[in-house]
Structures are given as structure tokens and as C-alpha cells.
């Protein structure tokens, strides 16, 4: 059973719908106990980085960290990916999980923000999450803050400079874009995650 973690931020129906379409057993849950026994964990996220503070308060952060410790595959989407880093300029007082090093930052004033629409990936072919996803594939983004490019980056995107579109370390994965809204390519990426 894949646990889609609900911490009260935004709409999780689209992620569930895509996993349903792929024939995956999944549940939207806010119970740390469900996360603890899940075969995979998906942390979606829309809206403000500050909303992730609810993860610590509710015991979900502990359940997610323990799951990752047990090598349960984890996928953070959008703000869910940003939360894997140490912190974000969007809400400096809210700490991230700190699994990946670096700070999420604002887009420069030279480009419109938020970054909304279909943009292209520059894919590292060794990525397991992006297996069979060619470079220059289009995926759908909607975000105002972005994660830096680090050694865990497996796909970059260009918008007012390069940023991390996908990150990967061992069994921990993150995507800044919305695979559940990125057509066939997005479904392929979710399917790769499900097959891990």
C-alpha cells in the first residue's frame, strides 16, 4: 500500500487519481501509523513551505523519517521535495527534513514568478526515477521557490537560471514538477517509482 501523506495542505486527489490509473493500491492518510506500515510514501505538497510545519506537529515527520530509515521508497512532490532540503527562504523559521543539503530560494526578479507551465528536463541518464525519460521531455511546473542544483540532482530545469527539477539519493526521490499533471511522461515517472 502506497501512503499519500495528507498534512492539510492542498488537494491530493490528483495524485491518488494518477496512482489509481496505474493500478496501484494507495490511500490518502494523515495517520502516522499508516505511513509507518506503507510500502512506499508519497509526500505531495502545494502552497506555502510553512504548511509543512504540520508534519512535525502531527507526528508524520517522525513516521516519514523512520520509514526512510527502513529504506521505504519515498517521493516528495513540489513543496514535498523542497521539504527534503534543510530550509526554504519562503519560511526560514520552518525547518525542512534536512535529508538533502541546501536551501530553497526565490526566483530572480528578472523572470515572472510563479513559474507556471510546461518546461523541459535535462535528465541524468543514470536516474532510476527518470528511467526511459528522455532529456527535453516536457513536464508541468507551478512553484514560486526552487531547490538548488546539488550532487543529488538528477534532472535540471532552466527558468531564470538552472534549478533542481528532480533529486535522487538511494531510495529517496523528489520532483519539483507535478508528475500527476504531466501527461504520459508524468505517468511514466510515477510508474518508475511504483516499480522500485
Amino acid at each position, binding site marked *: 500500500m502506497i501512503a499519500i501523506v495528507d498534512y492539510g495542505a492542498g488537494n491530493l486527489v490528483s495524485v491518488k487519481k494518477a496512482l489509481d490509473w496505474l493500478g496501484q493500491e494507495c490511500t490518502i492518510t494523515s495517520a502516522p501509523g499508516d505511513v509507518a506500515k506503507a510500502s512506499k510514501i508519497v509526500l505531495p505538497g502545494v502552497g506555502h513551505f510553512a504548511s509543512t510545519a504540520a508534519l512535525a506537529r502531527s507526528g508524520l515527520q517522525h513516521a516519514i523519517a523512520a520509514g526512510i530509515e527502513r529504506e521505504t521508497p519515498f517521493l516528495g512532490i513540489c513543496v514535498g521535495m523542497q521539504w527534503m532540503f534543510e530550509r526554504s527562504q519562503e519560511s526560514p523559521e520552518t525547518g525542512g527534513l534536512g535529508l538533502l543539503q541546501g536551501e530553497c530560494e526565490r526566483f530572480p526578479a528578472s523572470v515572472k514568478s510563479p513559474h507556471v*507551465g510546461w518546461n523541459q528536463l535535462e535528465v541524468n541518464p543514470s536516474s532510476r526515477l527518470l528511467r526511459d525519460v528522455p532529456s527535453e521531455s516536457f513536464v508541468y511546473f507551478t512553484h514560486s521557490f526552487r531547490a538548488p542544483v546539488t550532487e543529488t540532482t538528477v534532472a535540471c530545469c532552466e527558468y531564470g537560471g538552472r534549478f533542481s527539477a528532480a533529486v535522487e539519493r538511494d531510495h529517496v526521490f523528489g520532483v519539483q514538477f507535478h508528475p500527476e499533471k504531466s501527461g504520459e511522461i508524468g505517468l511514466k515517472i510515477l510508474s518508475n517509482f511504483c516499480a522500485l
Partner: protein
Amino acid sequence: MLTKRIIACLDVDGGRVVKGVQFENLRDAGDPAELAKAHSASGADEIVLLDISAAHERRATLLDTVCRAARQLFIPFTVGGGIRTLEDAAAVFSAGADKISINSAALADPTVITRIAERFGSQAVVVAIDAKRSADSPHWEAFTHGGREAAGRDAVAWAQEAEDRGAGEILLTSMDRDGTGIGFDCELTRVVADSVRIPVIASGGAGGAQHFVEVFHEGHADAALAASIFHYGFSRLIDLKREIGSQGIPVRWPC
């Protein structure tokens, strides 16, 4: 490169797509779920479903339609028409929409924008503005209730207020151009797009590829929406994107 979005709009009344639709190979050409899927397959970057009936007893029908369409749609999906409260929005999101579009209700009570944005995120809130050129042009007034009532608000000032209150995008329809097929109002689009930081979707007047090229170049639009232009067949949208792309506009291709 971030591409310009081409958005297909379905006007729905009582669970059926209205306006003449001539798609081939569809079991039911007036079914919104089938049409949404067909548009997605033929390269639409996003789908907007507008409930133009908005009669209260038809809300249940709308939610059923949204649910059926969303089940097999994996591109962004916006639903508008008759959404007045946070609860209305929540019901549409639960049915599978990614964004909601609000117009009259936001003008009547702008705080509803903030309430929905705080709960679902700004990226989920599209404020639709129906703008009509005033006699003392260049100046445009916002209208409500499907263009029947003047709101007494300057369209540009209203777009700025909507952004400040938490809107994630502006869907800007030129009432002067809507349904004419003579091209988007590039001047209106440019004035609004240059006044806000959030994306502006141009609507009203699309008649051919050149109109899209113009509204992206001259109107500074981030996306453009059309309904009737796509109602001639599947190939139309594919051809349109190819032609727009060949004129130097970045579009998602192949899709």
C-alpha cells in the same frame, strides 16, 4: 524553455458541451469527459471546463461531470462557473479539479480569493475577468454574471487586487472579441500582463494560429485559451501548435 500554453475550453450546460462540436471518432461528441480526453490527446496543454448553466439544481451534475473528466485527464484541469464559496471550491477539488476559476463571486466578495488560496494554494485559484473596452479607451471595465452586469471596476486595477489577495493566475476575456474570431485584444492583454507578476491567460477572439502568435508576442500573454476554434477536429489543435511553434513561439511539442 518555459512554453506558452494553449488551453482548450469546454463550455458545459447541464452536463453537456454546448457550441457546435464536430469531433470525429467520438461515441458522444457532446460529452465533456470524452472531449477533455480528446483535447488532451491532441496536444492541449490544459483543459478549462466552464459551467455556463450555473443553475443551482445542476451543481450535482457538474460535480459528476468533473469527476468523470478528471479520472482520465493527466494534464492541469480548471473548473469554473457558479463557484461562490470555499465549500463550493472544495467540492470541485474533491471531484478532481486542479484549479478553480472564480469571477462574479470574487468581485462581490474579494476575500473569497484569499480563503480558497490559503486552503488550497494560490496555484489553484484562477480569477477570471471579463473585460469590456470603455468609451474612454484605453480603459477596460470588469463585468460579472456572464458579461451582463458592469462591476464598476477597472479591469487592470482588479487584476492587481486579485493578485494581492492570492490569485495564482488571471484568465482575461475580452468581451469585445469573444466569439468574433478576429483575434485577441492584444492591447488589453499586454496592459494586464505587464501590471501583474502572475501568469495571464488571454481569451476571446481566437480565429487562427496568427492570433495566438500575436497575443504571445504583442500581448505578452503566458497562455491563450480558445473554445470554438478547436471544434473542427482533432488535427486542428496539433496543426495549430505546429504553426505557432514554427513562428518562433515556444510550445510543448511533441506532446
